[in-house]
């Protein structure tokens, strides 16, 4: 284990124990939990957009799908001592993965704005399916779900949920880090930067687009599966264009092609509006928190066009000229 990994692990341990040390309130804990969940979704989305250069404005559908699947499975399977949750969360990832393949096939023929809007259409259509397919989703009335039940241990408390979801986030982050820094990641990035060169070098655009879409759908689906056991309710209206755009914003604000950026972005977009609402004067005036969130988004883009995660690198650069190449590299991303 090298120094960098050790630092990361210590960092993660500190972050993860912070809520306990500070003794935050239950509602804050819920907020933190949603941040963890959206981090997972954003991470998946970043693999697609940041690393593979493929856009999707329909990813909310995968998150919704994950939520419905897990709710459905845990609701319909008889009490099996926690096995139903495992099956549920597994399918919450797997089925979106398969549908992600379909989206990948669509993406094979489309690019840029066309892909963006086609996926947007896909998202809207799936959302409509959530509304109409009552047998599976219970339609507009929505569906309740139980708390996570891990082999008889119920993770009802916000704290236990936090630990559990954080472990999943960590595992998925490490997994992504590993495969991004390998042949697979290089293939994705090559496809993003120069499709022609990639093809000439033996990278099958077909295969890598499918990888990008299915992996990111998997992550997003898992996030949905966790979501439904935290909020314990799912209804169709949440999984629309707005959420898809939010995922996009998380990834861009946090930092494209940055795992840590995905998490920062999720935290930014989830927490900022809530924090703003709590500030006395701002909270009182209608929509002021919303307006300010919008302003903040724009400010971040203007002053940190590479995302918040890249800020650290900039600061590091000020102190250490040796990282020049690194900086250059960061600046050229996207």
């Amino acid at each position, binding site marked *: 284990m090298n120094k960098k990994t050790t630092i990361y692990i210590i960092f993660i341990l500190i972050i993860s124990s912070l809520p306990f040390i500070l003794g935050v309130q239950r509602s804050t804990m819920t907020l933190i939990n949603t941040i963890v969940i959206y981090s997972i979704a954003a991470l998946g989305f970043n693999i697609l957009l940041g690393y593979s250069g493929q856009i999707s404005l329909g990813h909310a559908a995968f998150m919704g799908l994950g939520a419905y699947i897990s709710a459905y499975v845990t609701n319909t399977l008889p009490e099996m001592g926690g096995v139903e949750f495992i099956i549920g969360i597994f399918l919450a990832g797997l089925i979106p993965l398969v549908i992600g393949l379909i989206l990948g096939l669509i993406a094979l023929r489309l690019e840029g704005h066309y892909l963006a809007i086609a996926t947007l259409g896909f998202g809207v259509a799936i959302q409509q399916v959530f509304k109409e397919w009552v047998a599976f989703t219970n339609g507009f009335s929505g569906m309740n779900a139980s708390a996570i039940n891990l082999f008889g241990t119920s993770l009802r408390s916000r704290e236990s949920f936090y630990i559990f979801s954080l472990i999943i986030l960590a595992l998925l982050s490490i997994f992504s880090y590993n495969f991004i820094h390998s042949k697979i990641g290089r293939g994705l990035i090559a496809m993003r930067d120069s499709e022609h060169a990639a093809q000439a070098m033996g990278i099958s655009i077909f295969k890598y687009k499918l990888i990008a879409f299915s992996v990111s759908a998997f992550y997003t689906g898992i996030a949905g599966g966790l979501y439904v056991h935290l909020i314990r309710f799912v209804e169709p209206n949440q999984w629309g264009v707005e959420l898809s755009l939010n995922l996009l914003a998380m990834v861009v604000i946090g930092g494209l092609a940055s795992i840590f950026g995905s998490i920062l972005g999720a935290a930014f977009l989830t927490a900022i509006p809530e924090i703003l609402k709590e500030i006395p004067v701002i909270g009182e005036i209608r929509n002021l928190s919303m307006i300010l969130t919008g302003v903040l988004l724009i400010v971040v883009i203007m002053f940190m066009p590479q995302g918040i995660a890249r800020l650290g690198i900039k600061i590091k650069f000020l102190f250490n000229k040796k990282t*020049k190449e690194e*900086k*250059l590299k960061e*600046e050229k991303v996207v």
Partner: protein
Amino acid sequence: MLKLQNIDAYYGFIHALKNININIKKGEIVTILGANGAGKTSTLKVISGLLKPQKGKIKFNNKSFNKYTPEKIVSEGIIQSPEGRQIFPELSVEENLKAGAYTRKDRNNIENSLEEVYNYFPILKERKKQYAGTLSGGEQQMLAIARALMAKPKILLLDEPSLGLAPIIVKEIFQIIKDINKEGTTVLLVEQNAYQALSIADYGYILETGKVVLEGNSKELLVNTDIKKAYLGGN
């Protein structure tokens, strides 16, 4: 006519031009030579206003260009055929040429100019309705040069115009440069083909890692042994 005085320019942290002084007299052909990455393109970018120098002055007929935008500089009569051709891929060949004539006031003569450049490059006439992006590399290069010619500039900046052209066309290009120079256009020419460039130029500058290391009459430069070694492939 055009003067660069003590120019220093950066790309982020890369110091691309270091204290460059270049002087171009009216009616001349001036060439800039140098190895890869020496700063030739950057010099042209500075003149065109794409790269703003940190230090130094750019003067055109004693007017300071430092604050001018690229489009303003074009309307003053300086246009370039940029490195890498940079044609508009989804405009037709003819529309590309018309875009080159954007700042011209004498709209009526544009048709004539079109005929003129088609005369220089007949292949372009054949391809005039084709999307420029689908032209072959050399055809695109011709288009880029022709597009700049359409502006009828006072000073024409050419960044490696012979790149990717067949030998026979390369010859023609140099002939064209001579022709338009005779008609009164001042030319600043960046070339890898040092021998050819020096043969038609009046004056030359040699750049090395962002600095002018040598300048002089092209006749003198042609016989300079250092240059022969470095650029002309002679011994």
